[in-house]
């Protein structure tokens, strides 16, 4: 591109792909009023779930992704849940500003990131592992219908592809 900056390639991710069963997990799930332990399965039992893993709340990619999700109104069509290492309190703050009708899983130890093969060890933040940007559209049987995982850092979902996948449900 000739631009004077570095987009870092990330190692290949061994993540759940289309047709796989999305690994179940339980973490505190935050809405605008409270948080409680919820399993992914308890959400998919109620219908399709768009699981959006993102960098910690406050990082600009997290902000951009939620702005776009709000603009596209995905929460009107499917259950939209975020996933990051941020604490429940930070999630409450995020939901105060964006993420209308969405809920956020708090995974500070990045155990779900490990389970999903989307860990990202942050350079210059020793000891901090977070989720690389990733989107999984998971149906009511917990089968993955669409999957995207960042291959570079930073990287953003192809929102039109996600739109199409939601339409195809």
């Amino acid at each position, binding site marked *: 591109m000739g631009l004077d900056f570095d987009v870092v390639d990330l190692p290949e991710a061994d993540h759940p792909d289309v047709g796989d069963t999305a690994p179940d997990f339980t973490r505190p799930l935050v809405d605008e009023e*409270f948080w409680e332990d919820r399993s992914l399965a*308890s959400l998919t039992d109620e219908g399709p779930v768009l699981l959006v893993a993102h960098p910690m709340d406050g990082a600009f990619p997290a902000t951009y992704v939620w702005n776009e999700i709000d603009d596209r109104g995905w929460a009107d069509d499917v259950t939209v849940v975020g996933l990051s290492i941020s604490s*429940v309190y930070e999630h*409450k703050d995020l939901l105060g500003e964006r993420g209308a009708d969405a809920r956020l899983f708090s995974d500070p130890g990045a155990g779900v990131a490990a389970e999903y093969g989307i860990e990202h060890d942050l350079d210059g933040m020793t000891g901090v592992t977070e989720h690389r940007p990733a989107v999984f559209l998971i149906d009511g049987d917990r089968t993955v219908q669409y999957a995207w995982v960042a291959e570079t850092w930073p990287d953003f979902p192809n929102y039109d592809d996600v739109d199409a996948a939601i339409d195809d449900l």
Partner: protein
Amino acid sequence: MTDEPPITLYRLQACPFCERVVRKLDEYGLEYRSRFVEPMHSDRNVVKRISGKRSVPAIVDENTGLTMSESGNIVEYLEKTYGGEA
């Protein structure tokens, strides 16, 4: 569908009054679901909606259809309702 326990405890992280209720629930081996709310009183509308007050702890017991707040009241209620089965 995951089975949801009949008792829901609205609590605040690190609140000793809430822990008192938790101890009692554990003592009687009662299954409960924890819902954590904000430290800021004004941000606890969910608790106000279910119990009429913004104070925690508050419990909703679907076994008896009862909702109540204040740890002393809750502990007394749990003793009366479940103490005999302990």
